[in-house]
């Protein structure tokens, strides 16, 4: 069931564990994950609630620190990097989309999208941000604050924000989880559109139709990889 490891993985995890302190003692969230993601691949992480899929995604993004094992992204050992080095790494290589959008409420849509570009020192941050917003269909909403936007619109801003720096890796945590079906479809199209621009996509989802569009589906249960399914497209690529 497990796919053979790609020759030049963008992401590679070996024996990754995550243990968090809970009220009733330590909780083992991840219990030894081995996973490699190839450049340009779209991987869907699925599994029941509490299986550890979001935690795994966060570890891939350096947003959570693994308790054990190794996490490499684009050749860099994420477990060896400090907080700020991780931030700089994300700035150059990663984009993240959350279920709850996580836009900064005091910033307009345009400013939200421009922020990662600015952090990366991009001189054309605003032009690129505006372009990205127009691409997701929000050209008329540049100066709106998040509170003035609908849920779907907010997620489109979040998507534009993640995509604007043209990241090598795009991580998405249930990107359509808070949206209705039609709005979710729009977001899905946009997301896979980004992937088509060359990004590697790793996505946590509960939505079967979203998982169906991925090259590979990785199923988690109780902090372990229960199995994988390679989809036709991935097989075709091989």
């Amino acid at each position, binding site marked *: 069931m497990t796919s053979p490891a790609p020759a030049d993985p963008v992401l590679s995890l070996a024996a990754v564990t995550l243990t968090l302190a809970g009220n009733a003692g330590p909780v083992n969230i991840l219990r030894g994950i081995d996973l490699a993601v190839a450049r340009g691949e779209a991987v869907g992480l699925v599994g029941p609630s509490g299986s550890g899929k*979001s*935690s795994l995604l*966060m570890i891939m*993004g350096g*947003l*959570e*620190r693994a308790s054990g094992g190794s996490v490499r992204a684009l050749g860099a050992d994420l477990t060896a990097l400090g*907080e*700020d080095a*991780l*931030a*700089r*790494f*994300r*700035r*150059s290589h990663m984009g*993240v989309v*959350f*279920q*709850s959008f*996580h*836009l*900064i*409420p*005091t*910033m*307009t849509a345009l*400013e939200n999208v*421009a*922020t*990662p570009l*600015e*952090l*990366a*020192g*991009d*001189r054309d*941050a*605003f032009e690129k941000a505006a372009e990205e917003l127009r691409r997701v269909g929000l050209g008329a909403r540049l100066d709106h*604050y998040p*509170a003035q936007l609908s849920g779907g619109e907010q997620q489109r801003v979040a998507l534009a*924000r993640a995509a604007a720096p043209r990241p090598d890796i795009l991580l998405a*945590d*249930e990107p359509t*989880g808070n949206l209705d079906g039609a709005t979710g479809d729009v977001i899905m199209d946009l997301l896979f559109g980004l992937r088509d621009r060359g990004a590697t996509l790793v996505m946590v989802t509960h939505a079967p139709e979203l998982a169906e569009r991925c090259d590979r589906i990785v199923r988690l249960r109780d902090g372990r990889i229960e199995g994988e399914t390679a989809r036709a497209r991935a097989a075709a690529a091989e």
Partner: protein
Amino acid sequence: MSVALRIARRELRGGLAGFRVFLACLALGVAAIAAVGSVRMAITQGLDREGAVILGGDAELRMTYRFATPEERAWMEARAEAVSEIVDFRSMVSVADPGGADRRRALTQVKGVDGTYPLTGTVGLAPAIPLADALSPPGDLPGMVMAEALAGRLGVEIGETVRLGTQDFTLTAILTREPDGATASFSLGPRTIVSRAGLERSGLLAPGTLYESNYRLRLSPGADLDAVRADLDRSFPDDGIRWRDRRNGAPGIENVVNRLGAFLVIVGLASLAVGGVGVSAAVRSYLERKTETIATLKTLGASGGTIFAVYFLLIGLLALLGVAIGLVLGAGVPLLLGPLLADRLPVPALFAVYPGPMVEAAVYGLLAALIFTLWPLARARDIRAAGLFRDLAAPDRAWPRLPYVMATLACAALLIGLAAWLSGIPTLALWSAAGIVATLAALALAARGAGALARRVARSRMTRGRPGLRLALAAVGGPGGETSGVVLSLGLGLMVLATVGQIDANMRTLIAQELPGRAPAYFFVDIQNDQLDPFRAAAGGIAGVEQIETAPMLRGVITAINGIPARDAKINPEAAWVLRGDRGVTYADAMPPGTELTEGAWWPPNYAGPPQMSFSDEVGREMGLKLGDSLTVNILGRDVTATIASFRVVNFRDMGINFLMVLDPGVLRGAPHTHLATVYAPPASEGALLRAVGDAFPNVTGIGVREAIGRVNAALGELATATRWGAAAVLVTGFVVLIGAAAAGERRRVFEAAVLKTFGATRGRILGSFALRAALLGLAAGTVAIVAGAVAGWGVMTFVMEAEYRFAPLSAVAIVAGGALASLLAGLGFALRPLAARPARVLRARD
């Protein structure tokens, strides 16, 4: 109501976690007011209880440079169980410098007492010997006791010889307690007590010398003070005798205490206003967290009225708790510190829990709580059930319904009205209230302005590529930020401090600037007629002395205006001081050089007609006097009625010789009097001048202008310190609100930091942005505080002090910087958690 009560009770299960700032703000403001009120009450009660001791008897009759006539003395003896005669005047004491011919001199306030002194209370001496023994020790010389400060200044030990006038005394003890000394504590020289008999040979009570005689009466226990006073007025209507009795033993002190107390209560109200900002913010943030509950309750059928009642009850209960904590603190702290304070206060104080100030503070606290919570509560009632289905975080900008707006305004009016009424200084209270309201409005506008400016700048090209700066500006200008809370609380606190700073700096400049221009080095008083020429020669012979001016000096009490007794005369309260005590009077034949008449004409040379007078133009205007009016002045127990022939400019600030009243020489030339001299000399010559005059004229008292200015400066310093303590209470409250605002914003910052980290921001960059945001807010608050403080300072200097106002930049810069720093500290204190938080945990917790 019962349903509302039940729901409110259930809502209380959530605990008081979100209400720490609410409780602290209310408690601090109430505590400050209650504490000031308690101390004020303790002093007033102390003064009332000790009235007879402070006064030195049940009643006191005061006369200026004369003793009682035999008739007056007989009148007193007939009505009192005991009479004590005291003479009080300023003089110089000196001691021989060991091993040198020189003498060390110091200014003192001398009290000559008879054998019955003190009628009430006891004199404290070290060593503890009876006063009678101390004043009549064995040996040839009479005895003397003096305050420790004076003995220290002279470097004299017990048993050594001290000269007063031409008489030597033996210092027999140090005066540790003067029962009737409270009123004298503001005089220029420390106290010396000698016996009347000892004084007889000092040559200091020659005719015309400036002294005051006091007759203290011990009356029979049931005596009617008013009846005795009326009897005195009937018996000696024109003798210029001033009356005081135990019911108001120290009117000056009581007045000062009441004024300062009232002023500090107003400062306490400012603190309550600052606290109100915190209270309002706490309630708003609580209700924001409750939006979902409120919307759910509405979905379940709760009316707007029920919602209002639920949270009104809940907040009301908390307000009561806050006020109660404040009252306990406000009553407890003075009570605990009472023994310590009582020793340091120059007046008796009776520390206890007084209900009056407690009620006052509680009412202020509850009104403030109402004013600052009605709006958010009224808005809560308008939350719609649909709120459940839309973005709950978006702030509701709607105004509350009209009745709530009206109720809030009514509460504010009631609070201001109460403050004006209870403080006893309504003008100051109303101006202060107007100042606070105006400052709050200005700060609210400034917060909006800063927000708009921040938004504008955030969108300008300037911030392109500087996400830290833009994030900071976005936080200042963006929706739902902490801008208004921080600017309001910090700004109001800083404004009070800025006002105190501006006034203090201006007062100091005012005093300092009067001096260098052209001020005399010394005033000399009590120069006898036959000493005038030798004095001029002696002083003029000192190297460096530039100028000597002299004038005859008498003192008189204005007893009638146009024939109407002064007590019944209706004059402007601003000029009432003129009638309260005795005033300086001089005479001159020709118009003195430099005199500037504003109206009327000087009398002709050798004028021999009915008495004429030249009066101060400014004071005359305040009193409503005009040319041709007559003033009756009691001088040496004799009434002199003179017609006002001219008004002239009198500038008391130039420190030269200035008299309110100048009479033609006719009536006064023959009266016993002394002369006043001012001597202009550089500081280097002052020592030699004082020595020369002191050696040649032991009866003449020299008052150093520099020293006097120093005393005034020190007194001002003490006043400024008291005021600063009050201002500190406001600032502490402001800081609590600030911390509250920073704490409330922490969640938001944790989230922002997490998002920014996700998109590649380093911690340094995030910290820099947070610091910048805090500093910007502090800067905005400080700037408004400076402007408001300058306007208030200008108002006080121009209208109260009637002096020129100059902006004091040093104090201003310190306050703006202090504001930025305070905001920065509070901001950074709450930046640690956001910086340390792992993005994954933060962001997932919100999913």
